[in-house]
Structure formats: C-alpha cells, structure tokens
C-alpha cells in the first residue's frame, strides 16, 4: 500500500512538472512566417512598372539582375521614401549596438519587424517583388532573433542584416543620406560593413571597446 502511494505521488509530481514545462514552452511561440508564405503566392499582382513616388526607373534595376550578388551600394541611390521606416529601424538597432545597449537593440529589432510588416509591396512586381520577398524574409528573421538574443548574438545577426539592408537599398533606393562603413576586425577578422546616418565612425560590432574602428567606404545620396 505504501508503495502504491509513493508511486502515485511521484507520478503526480512528474505530471505536474511536465505540464508546467510544456505550458511555459507554448507561451514562447510566436506567430511564425505563415503570413509571409501566403503573400509569396501572389507574386504578380500588378503589371505596373513600379511607379513609386519620385521613383525614376531608368537605371534598369528591374531587369532581373541579381542584386543579391552585388554587395555594393550605388552611390547615387534612387530616391525612395517608402523604405525610410525600415532603414530608421535598422539605424535604431545599429545605435543600440554602438552603445552596447541590449535592451535598446531589442527595441530596434521589434521596430524592424513592424516596419517590414507595414511596408506596402503592392507596387512591386516580377523580379523586384521576388527579390524583395527574400530580403524581407531574411531581415525579419534577423529582427526577430535580435529581439530575443544577448548582445553577442545581436551583433552576429546585425552583420547579415547589414548585407540585407545594402541589397534593399540597391533594389528600392532611399531618400536618406547614409554612409557605408567597414571594419576589418569584425566578423572574426573577416571584416563586416554597416550603414550609418552619421559620417563619424561609431562601430556597432565592438561598441565602446573599439568605437572608432573602421572607415567610410561609400556615401549614399
């Protein structure tokens, strides 16, 4: 009899423990990329040749050239105000990292995901749309990870996010004046770039440890 009582107690404790664990786990789940996948299906919802405000489309960016393979940001970018909220959120992440501020960086991550969700892509078509979707998918994922990571991981995600931002600007343009900076010591000495709204070097990969490391490679607008 004593044995039975003991086993039932153990079972009860086990059961409660596992229930608590799985409940906690369930809460963590966030709405995943289902929304993106459904959006992906409607690939060509406009035959329009990209008529965004102030958008002069004479440089042949839409002719299917793979912008992902060109890492350079063209010095004279198309003037596009639509990308501003996205870039502002990216800058917010960058500045969080510059000041070694994990919480501020997380806020930037949240802002980035929100900015991409709000972006109106109904004006994009064909290859531009496809390319944008890939950039968005990747950048949102980095944003979501930045929200839940420590600062070392935030910096790793920021490195890849920066290449996404370069490609986004090459693809769609910006109205902002930006500087592309490069630090040869970042990314395990492989070097990494970032975009900044100020000319002065403020290194997001090392923060206070090596704030001045890097140089301006290019100015956009």
């Amino acid at each position, binding site marked *: 009899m004593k044995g*039975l*009582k003991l086993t*039932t*107690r153990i*079972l*009860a404790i086990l*059961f409660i423990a*596992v*229930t608590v*664990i*799985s409940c906690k*786990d*369930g809460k*963590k*789940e966030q709405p*995943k*990329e289902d929304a993106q996948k459904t959006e992906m299906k409607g690939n060509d919802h406009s035959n329009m040749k990209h008529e965004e405000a102030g958008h002069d489309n004479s440089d042949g960016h839409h002719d299917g050239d793979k912008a*992902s393979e060109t890492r350079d940001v063209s010095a004279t970018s198309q003037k596009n105000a639509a990308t501003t909220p996205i870039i502002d959120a990216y800058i917010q992440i960058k500045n969080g990292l510059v000041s070694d501020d994990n919480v501020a960086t997380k806020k930037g991550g949240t802002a980035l995901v929100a900015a991409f969700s709000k972006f109106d892509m109904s004006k994009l078509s064909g290859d531009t749309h496809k390319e944008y979707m*890939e*950039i968005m*998918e*990747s950048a949102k*994922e*980095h944003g979501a990870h930045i929200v839940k990571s420590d600062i070392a*991981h935030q910096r*790793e995600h920021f490195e*890849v996010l920066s290449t*996404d931002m370069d*490609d986004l600007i090459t693809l769609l343009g910006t109205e902002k004046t930006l500087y592309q900076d490069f630090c040869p010591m970042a990314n395990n000495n492989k070097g990494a770039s970032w975009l900044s709204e100020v000319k002065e070097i403020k290194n997001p990969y090392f923060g206070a440890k090596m704030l001045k490391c890097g140089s301006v490679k290019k100015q956009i607008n």
Partner: protein
Amino acid sequence: MKRYIKKIGLVLFIVFIAIQFIPKKYNQNDIVSKTDFITTFNPPKNIAAKLTASCYDCHSNNTYYPWYNKIQPIAWFLEDHINEAKAELNFSEFADYSKRRQKSKLKSIMSQIRDDEMPLSSYTLMHSEAKFSEEDKKMLTEWLDNLRDNL
C-alpha cells in the same frame, strides 16, 4: 487526508494511462526529400554522419524516437520542441530556402556549433554520441564555412 491523496493519485494515474491512447503524430517520413541538405551538398561521410546524429533528430523531417520519447506527455512536449526547431532550421527543406537564407543559416549553424549552444545540453544528456569534440567542431565549421563561400 490520506484517502484524499490516494484518490488524487488514482485519478492522475488513470489520466496518465488514458493519454497514452491518444493518437500521436511522429516526425517521420519514409522518403528522403530532394531538398535535403545532405542530398543537395553531398558532404564527406563523416560530416554527414555527424550532422545526422547531432542535428537531424530535431532539425529535419525525420526523428529517431527512443522508447521513452513515445510516452505521453513527453511525446507532446517533444512534438512542440521539434516543430519549433524545424521552423528555425529544417535540413530536409534546406535546398528550398533562398540563397540569402541558406547563407544566413549556415552562418548561424557555425556560430551555434562554435559557441557550444547546439546540440542542446538537454539533448546530449540522453544522446552522448551527439556531442561534438573540439576536432568535430573544427572539421564541421571549416566545411560549412567553405560551403557558404561557394554558394
């Protein structure tokens, strides 16, 4: 008081038995998909073996289930866990990812291995063969790094 506890224990025991009969969904597939990481990139045998042993249980469409993982509510807990892991990275669908995402995932894989964050310690507790030695880590990250540069 004694009778009270006994009753609760009995009820829980019955619930425990009952939930074993609820149909379970296992993360298993008979075919290896064309978009599988190993099928696509054809790594050397030792690397393929390491990835299969250490990553594929959670990060692919095929999990090997030891008997204790078929007991409820552990199986439910695992199902959630595997779904979360696959949303993050699914080796069975790797070739379906855009080039951009593949590169980004390879970078994350390397960093997780380097920092000993993956495989999870809760996993290697039961699967000691899944642990990476320092040589394993070096071999894997070098191969993955090379793959990333050539994508």
